């Protein structure tokens, strides 16, 4: 029977894995004629796949710049929409052994500190926040993605790292967090779009509506994401 179902390939940033697995389940329950196939990877790898002609129907990126690359290549069916937002938090190992109090600690050379790399959204946002706080960071590693950064904090190899609020919520059992004041805290936007020439544009458009609709937003809100404007 599954043979009759329309297949929809959804490429989503790996950091969205948890939420999108839940959305897939919810969507397939209400749309049994559609088989959502999820493809998780780094946003940049997903971009390369789409540029190389991957049969992706929907692209949910953690990075607006990357979505812009795809748009510039003329591969978007219609302009992308922001479906979720996120804010930053400082992740520290359980019990905060180094006693990190806030962004101001990120210039202490004796601490082991990590950020995401420049060019990676969480890295760019973190640097924006530090700049707003007037702190010149002295870091020990520029991690390629949030997960890598968070793992090192969890294991206590880093004394602190700047990640997303959603990440510390998901891992609250193994990391503690320090709040970044709103005045310094930039807002990350997650764009979603239907890819042109995917051959399943109607299905794809419906899926995007679902993510932007009440059910999808509820799933994301559960995980700490800000819902779209």
């Amino acid at each position, binding site marked *: 029977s599954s043979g009759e179902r329309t297949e929809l*390939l959804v*490429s989503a940033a*790996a*950091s969205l*894995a*948890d939420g999108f697995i839940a959305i897939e389940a919810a969507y397939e329950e209400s749309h049994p004629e559609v088989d959502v*196939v*999820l*493809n*998780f*990877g780094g946003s940049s*790898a997903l971009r*390369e*796949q789409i*540029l*190389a*002609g*991957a*049969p992706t129907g929907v692209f949910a990126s953690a990075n607006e710049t990357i979505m812009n690359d795809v748009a510039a290549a003329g591969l978007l069916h219609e302009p992308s929409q922001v479906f979720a937002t996120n804010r930053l938090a400082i992740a520290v190992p359980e019990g905060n052994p180094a006693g990190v109090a806030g962004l101001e600690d990120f210039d202490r050379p004796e601490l082991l500190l990590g950020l995401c790399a420049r060019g990676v959204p969480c890295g760019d946002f973190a640097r924006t926040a530090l700049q707003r706080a007037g702190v010149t960071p002295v870091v020990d590693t520029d991690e390629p993605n949030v*997960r890598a950064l968070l*793992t090192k904090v*969890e294991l206590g190899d880093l004394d602190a790292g700047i990640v997303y609020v959603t990440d510390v919520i*998901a891992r609250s059992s193994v990391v503690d967090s320090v709040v970044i004041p709103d005045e310094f805290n930039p807002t990350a936007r997650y764009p979603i779009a239907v890819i042109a020439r995917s051959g399943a544009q109607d299905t794809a458009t419906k899926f995007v509506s679902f993510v932007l609709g009440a059910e999808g937003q509820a799933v994301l809100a559960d995980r700490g994401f800000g819902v779209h404007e």
Partner: protein
Amino acid sequence: MSDGTASRRRGTRRPPILLVMLGGFGLLFLLIPLMGLLGEVAWSDLPELLGRPVVVDAMRLSLLSSVAATLLAAVIGVPLAWLLAKVDFPGRSLVRGLVLLPLVLPPVVGGAALLFALGRRGVVGGPLHDLTGLVLPFSIWGVVIAATFVSMPFLVITVEGALTALDDRYEWAGATLGAGRWTVLRRVTLPLIAPSLGAGLILTWARALGEFGATITFAGNLQGRTQTLPLAVFVALESDRAIAVALSLLMVLVALAVLILLRNRWLRSL
């Protein structure tokens, strides 16, 4: 000459202590990370975990694609090794170097390169798609191609070495008995290098089984279609590290079992 001082006996002589220490350190170097992995496993969750569809799918796909990649590597890699060992064509030493390339190239870059070349809009993939409608990425073919690309060097190197070391005269003997070159290859050459061939195939398979970077970049990460065990580990790492660790461990155990079993048979000769 000084008098021979008596030393204790029975069995073979004790190996030099420094050597044992260094070798033991080398072994530790391999064991410590494994211990680290073992320390993180949530053993009680393991049985439930291994029954999950994601895991079963990934396991099946991993076995299928790694075996397919090994076979593909055999079909095109053994002839390449043969040409390198036996035919003195121009540019042979350049090709010898090229064979090692996938070893140096970080797999993610290799995957990107595959995408550039074989993607639906790639140099080769484009015309291929226009002609046949075939799309290599996002299919098991993509997984197999990525795995073959990164693992083939192991086979080529091993087999080329064995062919170079082989006593030509067995092949002559075959020829004087009326066997053409093809028959000689099939009935003399390959059986004679069977141990090295076996060793090379095992290495190739092991590398294909562990392949991650090129696969996720080139073939995507689609559960049940292109999501092999290493890719499943990657997704699990996003949500639940314990699962990721358990999956890694599963993979390691499967591989280790196969390696130890086969190694005593074949890898000796490597």
